[in-house]
Structure formats: C-alpha cells, structure tokens
C-alpha cells in the first residue's frame, strides 16, 4: 500500500477578494508521478507555493512528507524540491557556482556537494557547460539546470511547475525524459503541474484536474476517459455505402438510441444502452453495406473540456 506523501485538507487561499485555491483536498502517494492539470490561473502555482511554505494558506491544512506546511515549512524544504514557474538563476555565475550555492544552503558538505553537482550536471546533459555563465544558457538549458538544482538535496518529492513552458519540442522531450527517468529509476515522487494536456498524458499516470481553485477530478487518465464515455453513453461511428433519410429515421426509432447524426456517408449513433447489434441489422436490412464500424474514442481534449464544462 503506497504511503501518502502530500495530503491537503480543505486548503484555501485568498488573494484579497480573489479565491485562488478553494477547499482543495488532494492526496499524492509516494513514488507516483502525479499530474496537476488545469488552465492558467486555476490555482496550480498557488497550491505549490503553499505546499513549499512560500506562502501561507488562508485556511485549511496540508502535510508534505508528514510535515505541516505552516509550522514545519523549513523541514519540508529540506526534503522537498520545487522548480518554480519562471525560475531564475544568478546569471553572472556559472552553472556549477549556481548549484554550489544551492547545495551549500542545503547544508551538503563540500566533497559530497562536488560529487553530486558533477553527477547531476551529467544527468541533465550540462556537463560541457558546467563552467559557463548562466547568462549564455538557452531556456531549455536553464530549465535543466533548475531540475539539477532541485535534485541536489536528494528530495523525497519534487514539485515541477510548468517545467516545459516556452521550450521547443526538443527541449520539451529532454525535460520529459529526465523526469520520467527520475521517477522510474530513482523512485522519485513527482508532482507535475501543467496546463498542457499531452504533456501530462505522456508523463503522468494519475492526474488531478483543478479549475478556479477547486479540484474537479482525480484519477488515472483511462478511468477519467471511461467516466466521460460512461456519462455520455456509447457512441458508434459508421461508414456506409449509402444513407437514406428513411434509414436514419428507422435507426432513430430503435429503443435505446438517443440520437443520430449524419456527416456525408458517416453516421454517428448515440446510444443510452448498447444497441450495436440492432443498429447494424437495420442498416443491412436497408441494403446498405457497412464499410467501417467503431466505437467513438474520446481524446484527452474531449475529457479535459468535458470536465471543465461540467462544473
């Protein structure tokens, strides 16, 4: 049974009158790669800042690795790493000097620090640039340096806030591969915040949807997909040789079929219950030939929009 590493209870944050996070209840388990998905301004960053003790919740509580986010935030920062959105570095220092500073602040003794810096710069592919000033780095390189800085403390959990934003596809892939490898090989718990659906789909197993500071759903992507499909009933897509208005009317008349839509030679049949047999029999009876028949699949966008429209 996996142990919870992040637990929030009714976590709430107001900025003046504006509700940024609204009674958030969330659990993340040790060793998982959790996707925190939501549109811009939905409260993702604020949640992460609260979990790291950088901002104080208006009400509610939360623990990270067993430590209270208000009373023991310094202990949290010892065992948890955050790559903030738009993280910055000391531009006139080299990558190694930047990491050394962070390493010192984490109380890592010098020989160990040097060893870890070398390993981590290799792990994120910056070993050639170790002694280059950060001002010469590209966005992707800076972001990789940021990941290395998060890892220098050997955290139990790493929070990544929009880690691939503004990167080119190559940069995105590099960051994704690094995060996936850390989770699989090192068993690092990753809390991955993003508004990019495909990012999250390709990286995370379990996701939490947040909108207007509220958590709408938490599950694996397959289950969420099934739920959307279940709520919608079943949809079948047909491609036929000919479609007559009479055929459409007859399919509509079948008990359990909610509606039928025609698009050229394609038919979309929405059913409350499974009526695939009856529908295909009706088509054949009319002398039309079924060229293609398949259940309609929901793309991640559909799921995403579905969840956001509902609430």
């Amino acid at each position: 049974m996996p142990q919870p590493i992040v637990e929030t209870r009714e976590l709430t944050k107001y900025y003046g009158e504006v509700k940024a996070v609204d009674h958030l209840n969330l659990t993340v388990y040790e060793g998982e790669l959790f996707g925190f998905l939501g549109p811009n301004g939905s409260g993702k960053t604020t949640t992460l800042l609260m979990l790291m003790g950088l901002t104080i919740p208006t009400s509610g509580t939360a623990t990270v690795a067993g430590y209270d986010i208000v009373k023991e935030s310094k202990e949290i920062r010892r065992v948890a790493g955050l790559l903030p959105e738009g993280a910055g570095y000391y531009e006139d220092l080299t990558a190694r000097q930047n990491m050394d500073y962070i390493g010192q602040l984490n109380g890592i003794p010098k020989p160990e620090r040097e060893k870890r810096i070398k390993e981590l710069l290799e792990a994120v592919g910056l070993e050639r640039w170790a002694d280059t000033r950060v001002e010469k780095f590209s966005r992707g390189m800076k972001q990789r340096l940021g990941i290395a800085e998060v890892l220098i403390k050997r955290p139990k959990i790493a929070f990544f806030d929009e880690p691939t934003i503004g990167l080119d596809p190559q940069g995105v892939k590099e960051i994704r591969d690094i995060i996936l490898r850390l989770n699989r090989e090192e068993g690092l718990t990753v809390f991955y915040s993003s508004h990019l659906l495909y990012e999250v789909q390709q990286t995370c197993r379990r996701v939490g949807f947040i909108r207007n500071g509220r958590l709408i759903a938490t599950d694996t992507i397959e289950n969420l997909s099934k739920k959307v499909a279940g709520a919608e009933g079943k949809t079948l897509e047909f491609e036929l040789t000919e479609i007559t208005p009479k055929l459409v009317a007859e399919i509509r008349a079948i008990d359990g079929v909610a509606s039928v839509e025609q698009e050229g030679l394609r038919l979309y049949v929405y059913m409350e219950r499974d009526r695939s047999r009856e529908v295909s029999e009706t088509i054949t009876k009319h002398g039309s030939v079924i060229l293609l028949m398949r259940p309609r699949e929901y793309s991640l966008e559909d799921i995403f929009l579905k969840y956001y429209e509902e609430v």
Partner: protein
Amino acid sequence: MRRFERMGVTIVFRKELADHLGSRRYLVLFALILLLSTMSAYQGVLYIRDRPQAGFMAIFWGAQFGFSFTYLMVFFGPIIGLALGFDAVNKERTSGSLSVLLSQPIYRDAVINGKFLAGVTALSILGVSTITIMSSLATTLLGFGPGAEDLLRITLIAALTILYLAFWLGLGLLFSTVTKKTSTSILMSIATWLLCSIMISIIAALVANMIAPIPMPSGPGANMTRLFESPEYRELIQRRFTIQSNIQRISPAYLYNEAVQAIMGRAGGFFFIGPGGGSPFRSLDISQALTMSWPQITAIAVGLVACFAASYILFLRLEIRPGG
C-alpha cells in the same frame, strides 16, 4: 541542526560579498572614490605645507581646489550606499531566483541579513581602505604621520563613515524591498541622492532668504562696509545660518558632515563662510567633539536601524505569488 541554521546567513553573506567585490558597479565606485580621495589628500598635503599649524587632520578637509574627503562623502556617499542596495531584493524577484532561493531549507531572515551584512562589509572595505591609503600617502609626502590623538580621530571618522554609508545601504535595501522593479528603485535612489546631497542646500538657502533677507542698501551714500560691520548684520547672518542648518539637518549627508567636522576638531558648519571671510572654526578636543557630534551620530544610527527594520519586516512578510 542549530549550527546549520546559523550557517544560512553565512552562506548568503559569502555569496553576496563575493558578488559585490567582483561587480563592475562596486569596482568603478571604488576606483572613483580612491582617485578623488588621493587627489584630495594631496591637496591637503599642500595646505599643510603652507600652514604647518593646521595639523595632520587637514588632509581630510584642506582641499583648496574642490573635493575634500568630507565633501566627497557628502556628495558620493549616498550613491555608493544606495548603489549597493537598491536592487538587492527586487532584482532577484524579477529574475525568479528569489523563489528558488526561498525554496531551500533556510529561514527568510537569513537572506535579508546576509545581504545587508555583505553590503556593510563591502562598504567598510571601501571606507577603511580609502582612509588608510589617504593617510599613508599623506604621511609619505609630509614626512610626518598622525599623532596618537589624530589616529583616534581618524578611527572615529572611519567608523562614522561606515555608519553613514550603511545608512544609505539600508535605505537602498528598503527601496528594493518596497518596489517590484529595479527601474523604480533606481529612480527613487537618484531622487533621494539629489535631494540630500544637492537640493537640500539650495532649498535651505531659499527658505533662509525668505525668512531673513539681507537688506541691500542702495542709492548714493550707501555704505556697504558700515553695514557689514554692524552688529545687526552679524546677527542676521547668524540667524540665516541657523535656519539653513536646521533645514539641512533633514539630510543625513549634512548630519554626517557636521559630525565629521566636529571630530576633526572643527566646530561650525561646512557650508558656512564666516563673516569677513574669516574662519569660524575653533579647535575641539576629542571628548568635546564627541559630545558635539553625538546627536548627529545618533540620528544617523536611528535612521539606519529604521531603514533596516522596515526592510526586514517587509521582506519577511513578502508574499511569493504566481508570476513573481
């Protein structure tokens, strides 16, 4: 654990100090001050050669062709201190390195304390080395050095200069904590500098002239000399001087100048030319000087504490928000 907590400040301090000492901004200011102060010490040496009774301390005030050390500090002191502090916090906020820094297992006050102490150290290095170089240069040129009492006075001047520069650093730090953008805090710094170093004396003179105007006798038979020698005129001049001093005391630069003049053994105001062009200064011993300059020193120290306390509290309450 406890040892590590204290280390947070030390680590921030070391990094910030290295940043200062290697920064172009600091080195340029240092070079400028060093150049101007050696020039002023050289002028001081010439002054002492002409008037052997002036004493060694004249290297700090005896510049005939401009910039004495005290004037240098009145004029450039604010800019040195403010330059080291005005972007200490908001630069890191804008660049995004502050949220990375605060995600480390340290208390927040370690950051602001470390930054302030590093600034004070950098300023101390500047102040002490400038004064040391001036004194040794003057000693070499004159062939005699400062006496025991002079050494004590020089040490006091060094300490006061550090306090004074630290005040400006504290004010710069406050500006950098209050504002989000470095462009705003740099403008605030420049405005403060202009006001405290230049504008204040103009304002004071204008106000004094409004309250106590100098009568200008005109027409034939007007006797200027008689007017200048009359006791009423002397009294008027004294009154104008008092008004001007009191207004200028708003500026820490003026307070510093008054205190330094007293420590150097000179009573009276820096911007004041005595009646008939004679020197209004009389010699003070050290205890008299300290008594006289104590209110000024206290005022600067209170200002420093107030600035630092305000930036400390604001920084600790600073909320890290999405988007900086």
